[in-house]
């Protein structure tokens, strides 16, 4: 049994909040550079130029790349041999969010109640997903999620007979309906299988994968490619101004499902595809 003081979670989360919002990952930068090179629409090219310049300013001046610094969504993979000591686990994570958003000059975008809508003032609470895994390490993944792209998510209980075509049509329709709202070029997270609530979780998890890394199963890697090509034929383009790059990548996460079901979900991320990892 390894003891981990929860104050370590607080300091790690605080640092991760600013890092995720200031520094766009190399994987995304590479995808934007490819877009700049290959986009055929001049307005689209101009968008890629602006986004790369924006990422450079954010990194160099240590400011958020986007003013919507997001909902702090945190995935925790806790080793089963870890014993958390020194305080309340969830409160320690929220304290990290509180500190990170305050000291990093990040926007506080969370309201206390969905209908009464009073700002909590410190961007808490975080959304925390916990997985218990073998070992004695704690892995934290923080993915701040903007509201504009989150609003364009979709879940559909497809039926088994709808098959590959039903899935592809559903994903392409969701991206098309979203149009310019989620700040394209987007990253498309697709969940497939599980249950109603599981599939949404899978779609979000799909966004955590490093851009350009295909699904390990060749069947799904092929399907990711097929869906990406379909999406990029829509012509929506960077910022919806028209062009070939509507999405940078499609990532799928798949889970077994019931003989009667085929749940599917789409969670869109903007080009500000923020995710950072840390292991304690």
């Amino acid at each position, binding site marked *: 049994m390894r003891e981990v003081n929860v104050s370590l979670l607080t300091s790690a989360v605080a640092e991760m909040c600013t890092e995720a919002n200031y520094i766009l990952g190399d994987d995304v930068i590479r995808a934007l550079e490819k877009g700049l090179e290959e986009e055929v629409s001049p307005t689209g090219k101009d968008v890629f130029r602006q986004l790369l310049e924006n990422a450079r300013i954010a990194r160099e001046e240590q*400011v*958020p790349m986007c003013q919507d610094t997001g909902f702090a969504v945190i995935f925790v993979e806790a080793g089963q041999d870890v014993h958390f000591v020194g305080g309340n686990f969830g409160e320690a994570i929220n304290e990290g969010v509180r500190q990170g958003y305050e000291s990093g000059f990040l926007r506080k975008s969370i309201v206390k109640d969905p209908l009464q809508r009073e700002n909590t003032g410190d961007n808490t609470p975080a959304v925390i997903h916990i997985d218990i895994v073998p070992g004695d390490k704690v892995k934290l993944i923080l993915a701040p999620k903007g509201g*504009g792209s989150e609003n364009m998510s979709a879940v559909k209980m497809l039926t088994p007979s709808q098959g590959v075509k039903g899935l592809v049509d559903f994903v392409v329709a969701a991206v098309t309906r979203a149009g*310019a709202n989620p700040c394209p070029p987007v990253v498309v997270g697709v969940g497939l299988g599980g249950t109603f609530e599981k599939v949404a979780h899978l779609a979000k998890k799909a966004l955590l994968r490093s851009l350009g890394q295909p699904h390990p199963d060749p069947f799904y890697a092929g399907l990711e490619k097929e869906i990406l090509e379909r999406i990029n034929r829509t*012509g929506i383009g960077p910022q919806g101004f028209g062009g070939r790059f509507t999405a940078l990548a499609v990532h799928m996460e798949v889970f077994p499902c019931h003989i009667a079901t085929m749940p599917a979900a789409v969670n869109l991320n903007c080009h500000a595809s923020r995710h950072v990892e840390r292991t304690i």
Partner: protein
Amino acid sequence: MEVKSIKAPLTDEDVLSLKAGQKVLISGVIYAARDAAHKKLAELLEKGEPWPVDLKGQIIYYVGPSPAKPGQVTGSAGPTTSGRMDAYTPAVLRYGVKALIGKGSRDEATRQALKDFRGVYLAATGGAGALLSRSIKESEVVAYPELGPEAIRRLVVDGFPATVINDAYGHDLYEEGRRQYSTE
């Protein structure tokens, strides 16, 4: 790509000279207002009461900036999704606001109101908040400070980059751009 420099606030002639797809650089005064401020402004219009700032002839930018660091004029300040303001926008255009800056498509009623009241809708690059903040030279909260990032701000901008989406003639770049590049 041709870039047109325009001065804010816009005259009717300015608005009529803009065409969907054009890239512009805006200099002058614009006003930041998003969801919560729109709700309040719409309520005042309904009651026939005056707005806390006169926005007749002005440009509204849908933005809720992140907090400014010490020494900064503003934090990151990119556009938010415009569609959420659609419910209020026809009344806002009827009142006399001339132009709107945001991101994402507008509904039928807003597009019709842009034609009826000679308005224009522009998009700034969504997610380029750090870059866009550089063209904001002054920022001052002028109404509803209690709304925090959603307060109404008076912004002085210099060379603020935007693209015309809906012009006063009924053109829509989102539809036309997509049609041009679609290979479906």
